[in-house]
């Protein structure tokens, strides 16, 4: 095991896959000479040269489409969005081209590529640069949506995403880039579509992805101090969702809280709650609770921003409510 950052883990994943497969290339804004806006692609231009690590103009729709066409022609593009906020400009290519090409062509063309970049809330950057859009992506058949919560998962999942034969939406977390964690030294892949139990417990299931996994683990520590034993599940892949792991946990704890940074309306928590209700209804001793971002654009002022995001305290409170301890 080595201790490395989340951004280094992503960098290792891309470098290893580019060494393994010369069809893989990285393209995006500032990925080459600048070494990445968040330094995820540090050193990659030197290692792989300008043909495989390519700076683009600021033109998200265009280079997203470039990735789609290149993937259809047999390459394995990694298209980096500096942040997912800017991917909104590229939605036509992601939703109407990448996701549907295989179906529309009756299986003749597939689009094996990764769209990746920073998502979720950042710090003090206001409404347009701080939001979670994974539910938009996860709504679309044909896409897979992956959101790692720690360095080891980030590396193993990104390698799997690059090797996957479908279009993978890989949403990293802007605030997690500097997080340090233990990563295996030997090569490993984490298969897509497999949730991970990050903490075992018997009283309540906390389901949380991306940065919220860390919040849920913190909340579990506080709950333990209060005599509540929480299990924390990180779906890791939002679509397809490993609902079996979640349901097995709920069958054991009989209570669930779903946590997400994104907006509540039609969010990931709504989907997970519905699935627990549909298939785990008889296991529930209380309604599923949701802790989500507040239903407002992200404000700038520090106090308002903190209020807009889910907090550890809110998760603790929700868990107490579903456990009848509020």
């Amino acid at each position, binding site marked *: 095991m080595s201790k490395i950052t989340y951004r280094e883990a992503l960098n290792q994943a891309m470098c290893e896959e580019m060494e393994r497969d010369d069809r893989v290339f990285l393209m995006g804004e500032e990925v080459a000479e600048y070494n990445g806006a968040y330094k995820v692609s540090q050193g990659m231009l030197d290692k792989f040269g300008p043909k495989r690590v390519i700076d683009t103009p600021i033109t998200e729709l*265009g280079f997203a489409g470039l990735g789609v066409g290149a993937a259809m022609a047999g390459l394995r593009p990694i298209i980096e969005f500096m942040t997912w906020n800017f991917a909104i400009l590229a939605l036509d290519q992601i939703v109407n081209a990448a996701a549907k090409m295989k179906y529309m*062509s009756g299986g003749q*063309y597939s689009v094996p590529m990764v769209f990746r970049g920073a998502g979720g809330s950042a710090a003090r950057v206001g409404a347009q640069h701080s939001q979670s859009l994974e539910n938009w992506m996860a709504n679309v058949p044909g896409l897979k949506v992956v959101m790692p919560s720690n360095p080891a998962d980030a590396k193993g999942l990104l390698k799997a995403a690059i090797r996957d034969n479908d279009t993978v939406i890989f949403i990293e977390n802007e605030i997690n880039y500097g997080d340090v964690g233990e990563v295996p030294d030997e090569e490993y892949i984490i298969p897509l579509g497999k949730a991970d139990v990050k903490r075992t417990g018997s009283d309540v299931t906390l389901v949380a992805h991306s940065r919220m996994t860390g919040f849920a683990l913190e909340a579990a520590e506080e709950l333990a101090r209060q005599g509540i034993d929480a299990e924390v599940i990180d779906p890791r*892949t939002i679509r397809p969702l490993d609902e079996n792991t979640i349901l097995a946990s709920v069958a054991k704890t009989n209570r669930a809280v779903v946590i997400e940074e994104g907006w509540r309306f039609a969010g990931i928590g709504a989907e997970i709650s519905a699935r627990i209700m549909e298939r785990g209804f008889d296991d529930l001793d209380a309604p599923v609770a949701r802790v989500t971002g507040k239903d407002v654009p992200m404000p700038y002022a520090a106090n308002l921003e903190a209020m807009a995001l889910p907090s550890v305290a809110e998760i603790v409170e929700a868990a107490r409510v579903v456990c009848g301890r509020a």
Partner: protein
Amino acid sequence: MSAKQKQAAGITHDGVFYPLEDLNAMHDSMLYIRRFEEKAGQLYGLKKIGGFCHLCNGQEAVCVGLHHAADEKDYILTSYRDHGHVLARGSDPTAVMAELLGRAGGIVKGKGGSMHMFDVERNFVGGNGIVGEQVPVGLGLGFSSWYKDDGRVTIAIMGDGGINQGAVYESFNMAALWKLPIVFMVENNQYAMGTSLDRASAETHLFKRGISFKIPGMQIDGMDVLEFDKKMGEAIAHARSGEGPILVEAITYRYRGHSMSDPATYRSRAEVDEWRSGRDPIARLEAQMIEAGLATEEEFKQRDKDIKKDVTAVARAAEAQPEPDASELWTDVYTDPIEGAYPYPVKVG
């Protein structure tokens, strides 16, 4: 003229010799597309073809000239007005008609319909339904040829409506920046749905739209198949030479409305007649061939009868096919579906 004489015969257009065999093939391909589209229109009227259906009557010389000029290995992709292009590319007409009818043997298994014809074996990359969407995808196909150095050219086709999309200029910029082997081709049929060119475009000479990206432009008469083939050949050679992309504007006209639901009341009957009777690409080639003593009016009449018969037989064969099997609903969404996680379980109770 004896058969031997005819074989040696042909037409020289602007320094290029077109042997009779090629002329016949181009003529028959254009006429086939015309009759195929008429049949599609008829079946649409009978409600056997559903949804949107965009016919290309009038634009046949562009389809046939392009596909005559392009190599088999080249990538071609276009918008939703795609029947003519996929037929000119050599795809099975029964599969194309079956697709229009939503049948199991459709070229994309009945999953795409009129707007989404694909044929991977012929490097025909759609059939794309969002105006201009195919242009960045074409940029990527061109990029792949640059990356792999495979000698292919991509011909990314759009209409005079599509060229106003921002995605097109993003693509122009990157294609020129990296000198990608792409021919951007605008089928200027004078109307973007119901909006005439001069109501939608500040610069109506669309071949000039690449100037600020240093992309050279060519305007070609798209109602003359020989002229179009020759000039398109030059454009493709330019792209293949490594000098970067080129923009081709094909001047053409669609005889029918934008789609089957459009009665085209935004233009005069006289205007349509002027193009149909004065510039029709099929009549033009026939006149040239008759003039050169390569065919007679009677022969063309007979070929038209034969082609109509072929198209009718194709439509019958396609109609006789079953609808896609219900299991097809769930296939081709993912290449690597994940066991237990997809398809989403829809069982109730």
